[in-house]
Each structure stands twice: as C-alpha cells, then as structure tokens.
C-alpha cells in the first residue's frame, strides 16, 4: 500500500516536470517567434523607407534649400504650363483661331475656388487705331526717359519717379517690344540700363528703395524732388516685383540682372510673419523710421501677389478680410472694412488695381502657371473685379455718365485725385489725398477705360473705347482722361497712364502678361546661402505646395460649380 502510494507520487512528479518543461518550451518558442517577427518588421521598415537627401524625410539645411525648384500648379497637377505667346509681328494670321477663350464655360466658381467670369476679354490683332494709340503711348517714354539713368519721368517733364511708375515704364517697354514697336536691341538697352540704375540706387536707410527718386540724377528725393528721403512703399515695391517677375520669365537672359537688383534689398521689415505688408516713413519729430501696415482692399492683394511671385508668403495681405460691401445700383461693391478714423488710411475703391491684376496676372494665384486664361485661379479677385466693372456700367446705363474711375493726376493743385467708385461712405466720391471733395476733377480715366475695354468685351466698353482711343497728343502721349463734367481732356501725360494703356493693348494680343518661369533654380533663391544674409534680409526659400496662397471664396458666393 505504501509502495503503491510512493509510485503514484513519483508518477505525478514526473508528469509535473514534463508539463513544466513543455510550458517552458512554449513560452520560449513564443518569445522567439515574437522577437523574430518584430525584428523582421523593424528590419523591413528600415529597408523600405530610407531618408533620401532632399526627400520628404530629409530636413534640408538652409544651405541646400535654394536648389529646390519652386513648385507650381503644372508640377503638382501634372498639367501643361502655359507658353509665352509670340510677338504680334511673329504671330501667324490664324493665331487667334486656335486660342481657347472658354466661350462654352459657364460663369461661376469651380471646385478649386477658381472663377470663370461672366465676361470674356478681348483678343485679336491690334487694328490701325489701336496701333496708333500704342505708338503714341510709347512716344511718352521715348520723350521722357532720361538718358543719364534710364529712368522715365512719372509726369511729363517733371524729373521724378516712383517704383510704381517705373513698373509702368517697364510695362511700356515690354509692350512696345511685343507689339513690334521696338526691337530687341532697344529692349535690352533700355531694361539693362534701367536695372543697372535701380541696382545702384541709394536705398532708404540701407533697407528698401526710397519712395521717390530724381530721374536725372538717380538721387533719392522727397515729394518736392529735393534731396532727402521719405520712406518706402510696399505697394510700389509689390507692383515693381510683378514686373520684375514678368521680365525675368519672359526674357531669361535678363534673369541674373533682375535677381541682382532684388538681392540688394532688405525685406526684413516689409513682409511680416503673419503675412502683412509694411511700408515705412520718417517720423517728423524724431527722425526715426516708422513702419506701418500699407494697402487696402484692391491694391493690397495685387501687391501681395507681387511679393508672392518671389517666394514670400503675404497670407493676410492677400485676404480680402476685413471687407464690407456697399450696394450701388444693386451691385455689392466691396470695400476695405478697416475704419479710416482708426487707421488713418482711406479705403478708396478704384478700378486700377483690379485691372492690373487681370491684365498682368490673369486674376491667377502666383503659383498657377497652367490654368487657361478664361479661368481665374484667384477666384474672388476675378469675381470682385466683375462687380467693379458692373457698377460702372450700371452708372452709365442709369445716369448717362460714362464711368471708368481710377486714381489719376490732374493739372495744377491738388495734382492728384482719387476718383473713386466708393470712399468715405460715399459713392462716386472724388477726393484729394488730404480728403477734400473735388467733384470737378471726376473724369473718365484713359487707363481705366482701355483696361476695362481689354478685359470686358461688352457694348459699354465699346463706348469707352470710342471716347479714349484717339485721346492723345501725338507729340506727348495719351492724355490722362476726359473730364466727366465737360471740361475737356485732362491735359497731362503720365507714365502710369501710358504704361497701363500699352499693357491693355498688349493683353488684347497676348492675353495674360505674366508667363511661366522656364528655368529650374534661380540665383534669387541660391545666393548668399553660405552667409547669414538671407536670414537677416528675410529672403525666402523656393515656395513649395504648402506655401501657396490659398484659393478662397467669400460667403456671398457659396455656390459651387462642379
């Protein structure tokens, strides 16, 4: 009995030992399997996801970022980039038969917030009258370009200019060349001399170009054309940057010269981190530089796109907000919502900035190099521009006043007026820079009339065309405009007026003036990579898709066309 009990105990112990051994084996095996699986998994990740230099996982050092090309819509969407049109004299006779005008496209927003306008722009060769107007407008620049500097006078023979008006001169040169009024040697001579002068200009406090320069000497001057300094204008610089990009993209052989001009400037106080544009002026009491936000709805967005064309990200400046609308002839006219009493800056609604956006940039976003002319990727800008046009046509239809309003120079004091669609709470308000109401200076601005004619092919712009196309003095250029109250012509000649008229005529022939960049890297993005200059002067890196300005629409127009 005792032996049997002993035997049973030994049998149980043996089974227990066997069970323990088996369990141990299972655990060890499972652990080995799990470890092997994990190892295989980790090893496999390392093998298939390496960090490639310049790749997505590679945090590029600043030294190398300039080599990355700017990303445009044609790259991302695999679309065909637009091409630079030939000069007018090199176009085949049937050139316009093949131009896609999108006549079958319905108006409205698309899914990407692009906008198809209700109206189409005019396209075709220039007729004899238009060619004559182009030649007369160009004659202004022949007459008033200073041989010593290559700068053109802003107004007649008064020897001063701004970057805004210099951009108008560049527009004139480009248009004259593309319309076959001048040939390439003159184009190269004029632009090279001009850019060389601008590169050598003494900057405002070693920062950015002064607001005004003497065209004969190239010296920085004040508003009375005496040696001195005023500050700088972000809006003027923004327009200048648009035209720098246009000539760099159209004429790559001038690219290095263009880059070298901009690489002299210090943008550290011009574009803020949140994307606002700041200008500068001198405090009269202390003499110190004061930086102040610059630009209101219309001009601000246009200038912002100029900066964005060079890699900056003026996110807030490109937004319409804060904006309000004023109902004029049942058209909701947008105007800047910032209170002039608080910000001490007027919110003028004029045609000019919308025209420039349409003519030069096609109401497109800066990264867009592939959408057709009839589709505006910066949708809200095109849609707002339509309203600006419509309200002026409505005024003509309901009151009989031909209307093409813009800022323009006038003879004698106050020398300059904002001939607005809306400002200070009043429609059709004509005011001086200091705010006086001067309705006698209301005029059909020649540049606005021909700009509207170029971008809106309508019965109304035909009337404007007839009023303006022969409004010139062959000895001096196109007149500034036609007084609304019957006082005749605005007998003054300006670079801005003649430049925009030439741009309008060029747009009829070639469409959107800005053409895509055809190179890869740019000196603008690669220069000074081995120094801290880029950091100090706030030079940007080539914009990637994440840096694009957003395409947006506004609450008034939520409908989507798919």
């Amino acid at each position, binding site marked *: 009995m005792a032996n049997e009990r002993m035997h049973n105990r030994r049998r149980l112990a043996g089974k227990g030992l066997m069970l323990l051994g088996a369990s141990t084996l299972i655990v060890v095996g499972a652990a080995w399997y799990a470890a092997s699986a994990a190892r295989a998994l980790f090893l496999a990740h390392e093998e298939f996801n390496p960090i490639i230099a310049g790749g997505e996982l590679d945090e590029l050092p600043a030294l190398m970022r300039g080599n990355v090309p700017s990303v445009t819509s044609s790259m991302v969407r695999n679309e065909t980039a637009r091409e630079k049109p030939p000069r007018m004299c090199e176009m085949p006779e049937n050139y316009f038969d093949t131009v896609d005008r999108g006549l079958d496209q319905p108006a409205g927003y698309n899914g990407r917030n692009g906008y198809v306008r209700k109206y189409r722009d005019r396209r075709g060769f220039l007729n004899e009258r238009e060619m004559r107007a182009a030649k007369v407008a160009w004659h202004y620049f022949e007459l008033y370009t200073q041989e010593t500097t290559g700068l053109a006078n802003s107004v*007649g023979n008064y020897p001063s200019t701004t970057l805004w008006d210099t951009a108008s001169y560049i527009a004139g040169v480009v248009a004259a060349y593309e319309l076959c009024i001048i040939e390439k040697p003159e184009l190269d001579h004029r632009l090279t001399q001009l850019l060389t002068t601008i590169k050598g200009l003494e900057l405002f406090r070693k920062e950015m170009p002064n607001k005004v320069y003497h065209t004969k000497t190239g010296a920085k001057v004040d508003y009375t054309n005496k040696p001195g300094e005023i500050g700088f204008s972000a809006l003027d610089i923004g327009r200048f940057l648009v035209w720098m990009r246009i000539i760099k993209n159209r004429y790559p052989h001038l690219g290095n010269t263009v880059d070298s001009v901009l690489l002299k400037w210090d943008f550290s106080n011009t574009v803020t981190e949140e994307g606002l544009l700041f200008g500068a002026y001198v405090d009269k009491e202390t003499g110190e530089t004061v930086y102040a936000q610059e630009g209101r709805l219309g001009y601000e967005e246009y200038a912002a796109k100029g900066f964005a064309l060079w890699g900056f990200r003026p996110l807030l400046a490109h937004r319409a907000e804060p904006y309000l609308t004023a109902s004029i002839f049942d058209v909701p006219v947008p105007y800047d919502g910032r209170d002039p009493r608080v910000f001490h800056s007027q919110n003028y609604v004029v045609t000019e900035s919308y025209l420039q956006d349409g003519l030069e940039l096609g109401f497109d976003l800066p990264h867009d190099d592939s959408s057709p002319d009839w589709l505006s990727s910066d949708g809200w800008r095109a849609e707002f521009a339509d309203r600006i046009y419509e309200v002026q046509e409505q005024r003509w239809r309901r009151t009989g006043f031909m209307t093409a309003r813009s800022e323009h120079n006038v*003879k004698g004091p106050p020398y300059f007026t904002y001939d607005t669609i809306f400002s200070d709470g009043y429609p059709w308000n004509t005011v001086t820079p200091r705010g006086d109401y001067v309705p006698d200076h209301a005029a059909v601005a020649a540049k606005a009339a021909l700009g509207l004619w170029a971008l809106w092919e309508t019965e109304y712009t035909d009337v404007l065309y007839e009023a303006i196309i022969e409004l010139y003095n062959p000895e001096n250029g196109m007149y500034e405009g036609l007084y609304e109250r019957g006082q005749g012509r605005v007998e003054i000649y300006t670079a801005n007026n003649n430049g925009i008229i030439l741009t309008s005529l060029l747009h009829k022939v070639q469409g959107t003036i800005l053409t895509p960049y055809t190179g890869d890297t740019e000196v603008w993005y690669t220069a000074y990579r081995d120094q801290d200059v880029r950091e100090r002067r706030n030079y940007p890196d080539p914009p990637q898709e994440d840096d694009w300005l957003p395409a947006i629409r506004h609450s008034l127009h939520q409908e989507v066309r798919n």
Partner: protein
Amino acid sequence: MRFFLSISALAVVLCSSASAQEQPQNDAEAFASENAIVDTSIPFAIGAREARQELRGAFGWPTFQEGLVEGVYFRFDPDGYARFAPSPRLDTDVFEVICRPGTLNCLGRKGPLGVYLNGQGALQLQIDEVQNGDTLSIVEGVTELPLPKRVLMPLDARMETLLGSGGELVVKRGEAAVTRVSLAGFLAVTTYLRWITAQQDYGVLPRGWPVPNSTTSETTTAQTDTNWRAPASNNNRQPVYDRAEDPAQSDAAKATDLAEVRGELNALRDLLLSRRTAAPNGEGAAENPNEPLPPTEETTGRDAEVKQLQDLAQSLMKEIERLQDPALAARDTTTPMQPLATDEMAKPVTTTLGAASTAPNDPQAEAGRIAKQLEYLMSEIGLDAKTALMLVQSGELEGQSSPDPAQTMPTDQPVAESNDVVLDILAELRSQLPAESEQTNPEPIEPKQTDPAEFQLLTEYFKSVFKAKSH
C-alpha cells in the same frame, strides 16, 4: 477807379496763371517746392493739427493742416491753397483760397464773391457781374440790411465785422436778386488771408481768436486793438508784396503794370500841382531859408521834380528789362533788389536824406527823441533795429508833427524781410518828395492834409516795379 484797376490787374494775373496751367507740360512744373509759403505745423487756431498725406504719386505736398474755427472746418496746404466750409467734408458752401504760386498774393472766393488784401493790406471785395445801379445787402432770415456802395471799396473795420457776422450777401437789380452768396466762413477766410500775408504772425489775428498757446505766449500781447483797423485809413501800414513773381505772367499783364506805373506818375504830378496851388504863402514861406520862387520858376521846379521822378521810373524800367533776363530772374527777390537800390538810386537818395538829416534845429534833442522812438519801437512793439530805424526815418519824413510813434507807427504789421528793399525804396521816395517840396513850398504839409491816395499811388508804383523786377 484805382480799385477797379487793382481788381482787373489781379484778375489778369490770376487768369494768366490759369492759362499757364493750360500748357500741358507746365502742369508738373507748376508744382515746385518754392511755392510753399505756409508752414503747416504752425496752427491757425487752437485744435488745428498738421496731418501727413498719403501720396500715391511722385510729388505733392506731404503735409497739410486741418481744424475747426469760427464754425467752419478748414484745410490748407503749404502753397496756401485752403478750403473753408461748414461741413467737415468741405464739400458744400466752400470758401476757397488760392494763392499765386510762390507769392503771398491770395484770393478767397466763393462763387461770384472774391475777397483779397490789396496792396495796402486792406480787405477788398470783388463780386462778379455787379453793375451800376445794383444794390447790395446782407440778408439773415427776414432781416435785410442794405450795404453802402463803399462795400466794394477797401473795407473798414465796421464793414468787415458786418460781413464776418454771417448771413447772405445779396445783389439786387431792381427788385430781383441776381446773386446770393453765403458769408459762412468769411471771417475765417479774411483772417487766414491776413495771417498768410503776415507770414503766420499771430499778431494779425483778431481779438478773441483762439490763438494756440495764447495763455503763455507773448503773442497774446500782439493782439492789439489796431489789428482790424482798416489799412486804407492807416497810411503807415506797410503792404506785403510778392516774394516771387509768377514766371508765367503774360506780356499783357506786364503791359498793364507798366501802363499803371505811368498813370500813377501822371496822377502824382497832378497831385503835386494841386497841392502847390492850394498851399498858402504864409509865414512858413518866409521862414524857409529858400526864397519862394516866382511862379514860372515854381513851375519849372515842379517840372524838374516830376522829371526827376520820371527819370527814376525810367531807370527802374531799364532795370526791369535787365532783370527780365531769365538768368537773373531769381525767385528770391531780396538779394537781386540790392543793386537796384545802390546803383540807380543811391545818389539822389543820399542827397535827399543827407539834406533831411541835417535839418533839425537842435541836434541833441532830436537825437534823444529818435532814440526814444527807437527804444519804444524795439522794446514795446518788438520790431528789430533795422525796421525800427526805417520806420522812424519814415515817420520823420512823413509828418514831424507826430512825435509819439505809437500814434503813427503800425503796431500790428509785421515787416517781412523780403520786403525790406521795397520799403527802403518807398521810404526814400517819400523822403524825396517832401524834402523837395519844402524848397518850393514853405508851408509844412500837415499830416491831416495828406491824401492817402498819395501813398497808395506810390505803393502801387513800387509794387509794379517790384513785380517786374522779380522776373
């Protein structure tokens, strides 16, 4: 007639200025920093402020001044251009002030009504299309106050006060009102015109004007009762002339000016003749060391006087022609005028002043009196030494019966440096006339007998000379 001539001359000049602006390529040139005549940082009234303009273009005035005074809002630029209106937008019922480029010659206008300071610093109205037989009145509500015809003459203090009190100026032809102009802003505009002409001296502002810093500034003492005395009745008021001449002045305007000069000389001659005829040959004549001349000799003497003046005018004409050379037509008129005074006029002036300065009976008493006058002018009035001396000389020669300079000297008229030369010439010519008259007329000329027109004539004469010279 003279006033109408003045109006016509001003209109011609303004028209010529306007026609100059019609030239297309002169527009930009019309803007010049030299046209700045006003410092916009000096407030016109309490609460006014200098503001900075946002300019989109390449040129223009970077600052202006805006404010509210006497119930009207105003804004003005450095070139003097100003707008006054009851609404802050300055859009209705606007009184506009325009100055000839680079000069202190400014004209306020509202519709057909114009107001300006004439050569003597007196306010004068011009109303377009007023005809003989028209009646003028001020209407406020149902009250109608007829105005005398002299409202179109240089205004006196009462008339200024009346026009500045508001209402509407109504011109009637028969029973029909042909013109109605609101007088809102009249006081502010006329004060502005005086202030500009006085180169922003607070001394010319009326009593009670909200002068900035008036509680601490010495300018408070400069607000005198005489500020609004009509200069037409105050021959001592020195006119302020152009600091520069409009280069675009037309030939017609020049011809008008020259004709006016000749006319003034003829009038001066008539004046001398009539005075000579009216003057009695009394004791004064006997006491005069110079024996009275026989009638024929008197005539000869007067002719000599006139001839001398005409010779002087001719020399000035020559100088005008010489200065019409663009190279010499500098805008700063002070310096170029010096050679004229020294070269052409030094000899007769020196002679005349020399004769006058040796005339006093008691040199010591005379010197003491002059010193007293100088001290008064410098310490009480605040004039600089040169100006005070000039005024004393002028006073000596004009009427020695008025020993108290406070009664004769202007206390409210600042003397502009740029006008020193003109004033010098004026003083010299004034000294010349009575000094030589004493030779032929033993009777001292009583100040009360002095015709203000005489001074006005000379003023206009030299104004025209000055204008032509600054070309």
